[in-house]
């Protein structure tokens, strides 16, 4: 399955030629999880705090679906 992935707030440094917020496609086996996505992208698990799938917080072992919009964040805050 193909995921539409966006990296933010410093996580983009782990993937070559990727800029924060610019979507790129990642192929994972059907039923793949956030954890598998991070491993495939070589992003250390502990660097990622939030995984938003189609705008909803998901646990890293939740399965994703083909075409999902996935956004990865380290811990962020402000206000």
């Amino acid at each position: 399955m193909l995921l539409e992935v966006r990296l933010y707030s410093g996580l983009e440094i782990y993937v070559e030629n990727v800029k924060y917020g610019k979507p790129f496609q990642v192929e994972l086996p059907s039923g793949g999880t956030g954890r598998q996505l991070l491993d495939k992208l070589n992003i250390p698990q502990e660097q990622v705090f939030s995984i938003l799938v189609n705008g909803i917080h998901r646990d890293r072992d939740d399965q994703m679906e083909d075409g999902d919009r996935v956004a990865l964040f380290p811990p962020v805050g402000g206000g």
Partner: protein
Amino acid sequence: MSRFIRLDMSTKKVSIGETPEKYLALGGRALTSQFVLDEVPATSHPLGVKNKLIFAPGLLSGTNAPSSGRLSVGAKSPLTGGIKESNAGGVTSQKLASLGIKAIVVEGKEDKGSYILRVTADNAELIPADDLAGKGTYELTALLKERYSEKAGVICIGPAGEMKMLSAGITNNDSEGNSSRYAGRGGLGAVMGSKGLKAIVVECDKPFDAPVQDKERFKVAAKKFAKILMDHPVTGEGLPKFGTNVLMNIINEAGTLPVRNFSTGRFDGASEVSGEKLAEVAIERGGKATHACHPGCVMRCSNAYPMPDGKVCSPIEYETAWCFGPNLDISDLDVVAKLNYICNDVGLDTIEAGCTLGVLMEAGVLPFGDGEAAIKALEEVGQGTALGRIIAAGSELAGRVYGVTRVPAVKGQGIPAYDPRSCKGNGVTYATTPMGADHTAGYAVTANILKVGGYVDPNKKDGQIELSRNLQVATAAVDATGLCLFVAFAVLDNEEGLPTVVEMLNAQYGLELTIDDVTALGQQILNNEREFNANAGFTKADDRLPEFFYEEELEPHKTKFELKDELDEVLKF
């Protein structure tokens, strides 16, 4: 001795007395709201002779407690007609506290001249200053620092306040002299303007000279608190790296970014006005991606953004980047910075200005996405034209003038950067805080979006009432301490956080407060504020969101706001 300064602008008399017994244990918002309830008739005209403006440093300000330099400013708000506490960073809170000043009260009225109040170690003096009338805050601050002391802190208003515009703010400077640390919300700049007071100059070169009873005990607690802040990933890493505008992308991804005057929840250009972009451009142009608004802040969430015209906008906060960016369909950070700078100079609340421009774009007065048109329109505020006055009168009034129904405001104050339909906890706060729509009053974005202090699904109504209530009580107490609200990120996740704050207060004042006392203080502040508003004529009908949030679905989650009668339970203690 704790000093209480009263300035009567009707008689031009300044009196410096001891702090009344009743106010000795209060500071920051606890003091300003108690005082306004005690001394300002709730039905008085906000710009009239009976309104009183009070400046009070927080209880821990002027000590080396980390990130404790917040100043509270209170009065009856011309924008909402209710009580207002507006809260600012910058250097003057620490200076006032270091001079042993509990509060400065400005009362009475002056219609003709322009004056400044000069506060020194042993005196406070009112000085006529007609030569300073009409000056922008940047020039004014530089002039006053040159005239009196380079190390002075300057609290002042711009032309918007002098023209008594409803969303005029009161600013003070950071360590570099930028007059950009605003008590922005609620139009308190107009109250200061109505009294003929252009500025307060606080001459003091010591930021950490407030009296502390048990110095050793305090030192241990303050050090521990600094470590708690440094160890938390948000306050120790996230905020220092990209500032508050790091939120732009996650709020956008979560689908709760208000776009085109709250008509949808996602914006394709969000990254272009985000904290990541800001840091990139600021560093490229020789600015700063991280910066402290006052000495002793460990979070350093501020920044300095050099603009193409050579001036520097410092800082650009998330809410400002949102209101002049996605809210107006603008994705050019230079335009955002320019609009921000104009507000800082003319003396206007950025959030209200952005909300109002959004409403005017909705009305077709100027086109969505047109940065140049927005800049030109905002420049009219300083010129005092009819359009300029409408812009500075706030979103609700602009909506009425142009017949717009999608007006994002509660109690007359514009709703900030989180759409209440997909960040429902903040929706509860917007509706019920006595301040009018205010994201800081009970910042449920923590548990709704950031997963700090637990997780409550932002798209469902379950748990939002309790979440907002607890945050509003805690926030009121934090606003009394002078601590920056951002310490909450660490305090919510660390069970030693709140006890350490209590320990610092006990060491400083020789008290034996408990955590329960802090909760009681927060509730007391809110009760005082609600009592004032009730006396001013507010009812539960004022504790609701605008109709369109209940009727129009927000993309991408297709959410509406559903909470109504439950809102009446939020602030019942």
